[in-house]
């Protein structure tokens, strides 16, 4: 029997998913669950979503044949240019979808969590566009690390609230956003930034991001005459650009899907975010998934040079795709990702986000046939990482 990669009617992907939330969140999540599909399939919703993606975000994002990289690796390497989106990453696909949904639900106030600040910026952006109040929770540590993104959010009218609990990074910002939602159950919508959280968030976010693979298929036909490449690669923090990139390829069994996680200083260094290797099954932020934790079930703080991959879990669908081996999860160290960033800058004139460079770094480790077609999701641009590049490369 063919394995089912998609969600079932209970909100699970195989053993993973569900909605492990306290009763205080039940009405909010249940409202979403019972209404999201109907709303996002309404013609006027679809029309506005598509029009904003086109005229505001700048979609479709190009599929670019990276010729010099192709020559180097001996395969046709295509880059899906999510870095060219407004605000510089794939995150905006999701926030556009969710802000329209929030409007339909009559919500007046938007909250979000952010790590690197990319999702926070993408949320502040759509709130400014729609004139809605915006509160972004961000770990105190990340606020210091990502000052330019904090300034961008503020400029667009968002309130940035430091998360001072726990390790003061992304997972704690997520906790604070959930607490805010508990305390503001009626007028507030929580825009989660990745394919994580209680059902229906992982499914909803992957639907909004699936535009990435939808476009890619069409563009591949134009470029190569076929809609199926040999390989598709993406990086995974929570896993939203990867789910968007894989979405329409999941049932094309001959397309190899590869997801790059952040190994940080090395998978066994104690400073890593390679959840598929280090994680065990459990519950994090409302869904059953795999997460990095102690034997006692306390969540372990991850580490990666890229703030966007610095998350102790992965979305439940990834946990499932890993378990049934539909997607291969690989680990890329800080150094490998930094070298891949430099290589893309030098060879193609594109400075990638360090997150995206984790996917690029995997190319080094693969062997290709001459005619292989490879698509790499370039999930974001490197502007936000300049300070890190300057320090690392002594620029």
């Amino acid at each position, binding site marked *: 029997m063919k394995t089912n990669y998609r969600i079932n009617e*209970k909100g699970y992907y195989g053993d993973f998913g*569900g*909605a*492990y*939330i*306290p*009763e*205080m969140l*039940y*009405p909010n999540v249940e409202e979403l669950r019972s209404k999201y599909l109907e709303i996002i399939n309404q013609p006027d919703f679809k029309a506005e979503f598509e029009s904003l993606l086109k005229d505001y975000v700048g979609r479709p994002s190009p599929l670019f044949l990276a010729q010099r990289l192709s020559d180097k690796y001996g395969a046709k390497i295509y880059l899906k240019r999510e870095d060219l989106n407004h605000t510089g990453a794939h995150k905006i696909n999701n926030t556009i979808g969710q802000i329209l949904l929030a409007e339909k639900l009559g919500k007046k106030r938007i909250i979000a969590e952010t790590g690197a600040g990319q999702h926070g910026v993408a949320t502040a952006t759509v709130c400014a566009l729609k004139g809605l109040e915006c509160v972004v929770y961000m770990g105190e540590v990340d606020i210091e690390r990502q000052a330019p993104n904090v300034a961008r959010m503020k400029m667009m009218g968002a309130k940035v609230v430091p998360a001072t*609990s*726990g390790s003061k990074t992304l*997972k*704690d910002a997520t*906790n604070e956003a*959930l*607490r805010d939602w*508990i*305390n503001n*159950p009626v007028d507030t919508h929580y825009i989660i930034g990745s394919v994580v959280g209680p059902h229906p968030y992982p499914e909803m976010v992957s639907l909004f991001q699936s535009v990435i693979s939808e476009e890619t298929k069409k563009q591949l036909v134009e470029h190569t005459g076929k809609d199926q490449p040999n390989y598709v690669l993406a990086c995974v923090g929570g896993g939203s650009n990867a789910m968007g990139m894989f979405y329409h390829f999941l049932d094309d069994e001959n397309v190899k899907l590869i997801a790059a996680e952040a190994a940080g200083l090395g998978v066994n260094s104690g400073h890593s975010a390679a959840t598929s290797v280090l994680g*065990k*099954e*459990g*519950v*994090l*932020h*409302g869904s059953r998934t795999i*997460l990095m*934790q102690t*034997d*006692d*079930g*306390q*969540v372990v703080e991850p580490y990666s040079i890229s703030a966007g991959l610095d998350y102790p879990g992965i979305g439940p669908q990834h946990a499932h795709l890993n378990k049934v081996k539909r997607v291969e999860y690989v680990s890329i160290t800080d150094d490998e990702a930094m070298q891949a960033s430099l290589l893309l800058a030098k060879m193609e004139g594109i400075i990638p986000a360090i997150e995206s460079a984790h996917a690029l770094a995997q190319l080094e480790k693969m062997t290709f046939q001459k005619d292989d077609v490879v698509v790499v999701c370039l999930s974001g641009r490197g502007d936000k990482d300049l300070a890190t590049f300057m320090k690392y490369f002594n620029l």
Partner: protein
Amino acid sequence: MNRLTKLFSEKKENILSIYYTAGYPEIGATLKIAQALEKAGADFLEIGFPYSDPVADGPVIQHSSQVAIDNGMTLKMLFNQLKDLRQQVSIPVLLMGYVNPMLQYGVQNFCRDAAEAGVDGIIVPDMPLYECEELYKDEFIKHGLSNIFLVTPQTSEERIRKIDSLSNGFIYLLSSSATTGKGLNQSEEISKYYERVRAMDLNNPLIIGFGISDKVSFERANKFANGAIVGTAFVKTIGNKEDYLSHIPEFISKIKGSN
């Protein structure tokens, strides 16, 4: 019948429960606090097992959880400490915490060790009804553990009925939709919600929690329910004090209004 259901069959009003975090303010505090609370007149106890990411809790209980973890508290350690529970404490005891540590320990192991220690029930706010019913309910019943669910002002009547049918102990009525430690919502709307739930004539007794901190809020809760739970205010009282045990009698007698 366990100690908890026995308590409810004998006492119908002004029931006082205290929540505290195991391993806080010091690792060896767990049973000492339980003893002191029983002596001071608490009717039953909720002992929290700490979790690194307690989303339903406000800053005070977050802090106590983190300190407890830093002190070395784990479920293994807690069950070890609880081996002596029933030599020292006779009032009902519930364990309260988040689902992830419980899953790592193994739900079966958890229930077995809880029952062996003489624990009477569990409260796991982020365990969903559906999973509880399908996967874990039989395990709780087998080990004689009452399973407690929360109800908020936003919980629908249909869902309250469902929760009532799955409960065997009491229903934990939240004083508002909020994280712990927010102060009491005194609005008329909230009174209406209490009245509404009471009028449903449920099988389980009602205990109000979240925001109960003193005599006034305790008395108000008792107008609508069989009793109330104090958490944050108690954790604050025992926090960062060398002689934390000596503050317990006064804290309890103030709430009960007996002085």
